[in-house]
């Protein structure tokens, strides 16, 4: 019985970060810097056409449903992408269009 209790406790402790990572954080749990970034993006989002806003919402739902490791991979890729210089970004854009045209 005692062993079962320990196993249950360990499971709860190990599972907690995973569950927490999948839960979207409410506004008041964001740091001031995160709130500022969200606010600035929100104002930009408001200027986008409606269909683009819908598309972003769909992507957000999909992103939230991803396993944590996939989300981490995307974040890591984004950081790499952000680090591209203009030339690298242009080349990546060309490759993306080439790759995209091959998808259809």
């Amino acid at each position, binding site marked *: 019985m005692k062993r079962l209790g320990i196993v249950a406790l360990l499971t709860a402790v190990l599972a907690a970060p995973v569950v927490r990572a999948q839960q979207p954080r409410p506004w008041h749990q964001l740091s001031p810097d*995160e709130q500022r970034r969200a606010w600035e993006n929100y104002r930009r989002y408001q200027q986008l056409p409606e269909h683009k806003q819908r598309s972003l919402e769909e992507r957000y739902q999909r992103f939230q449903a991803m396993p944590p490791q996939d989300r981490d991979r995307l974040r890591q890729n984004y950081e790499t992408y952000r680090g591209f210089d203009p030339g690298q970004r242009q080349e990546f854009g060309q490759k993306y269009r080439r790759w995209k045209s*091959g998808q259809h």
Partner: protein
Amino acid sequence: MMRCRRATRWMVTALDGELPARRRRALDGHVARCPACRHEMATTAAVLQGVGGLATSSEVPGRLEQATFRRVRLLAAAEAERAATRAWWMRLRLPALGFATAVVATVAVGLMRGSGDRPLAPRPGDGGRRVVAQAPTKDKPPLVASRERGGPQATATVPAEPPPELAAAPELFMDLPLLRNMEKLEHFETIRTTTLDDGEEQSNG
């Protein structure tokens, strides 16, 4: 012949590099001819570039964080102390302040009436007190209006209470630059290893 409505619909997709080549050519042709759409496209590009340039996270050194919190605590303590000392003399000063305001307002109205440019046309039975009471209300609407103009859309500061849309999904907006590029990021390695030579679509990933 493309119309402005369709052009506008395609702009964001085009700027994301996701518009098929034929449509892109049609859009470029329209934008070259239409100044309004050219302006719209430039504005949209600027917005999207602004979104894309934002960081999704930033590191704050631990020492800076601790120093900031310490400073905030000190400022909060100093402010609380100031508020406590202010309370007793404010009680004494408020009636005097009110009296002084009334005197200044009376003098100001008297001067306005005496100037003769725009007399306030006193009606029979109107006393000075009534005019004094009207003067501040005349100034009120512009003050309220300017506060409305300076609402959340016009300020860069974060509001204490976010709009419902932002409060409902703050992380959507935090991750907006990432979400905009989601397809590229999902197939990042494949796209990176796609070759551009000889017109063939190849990928090593």
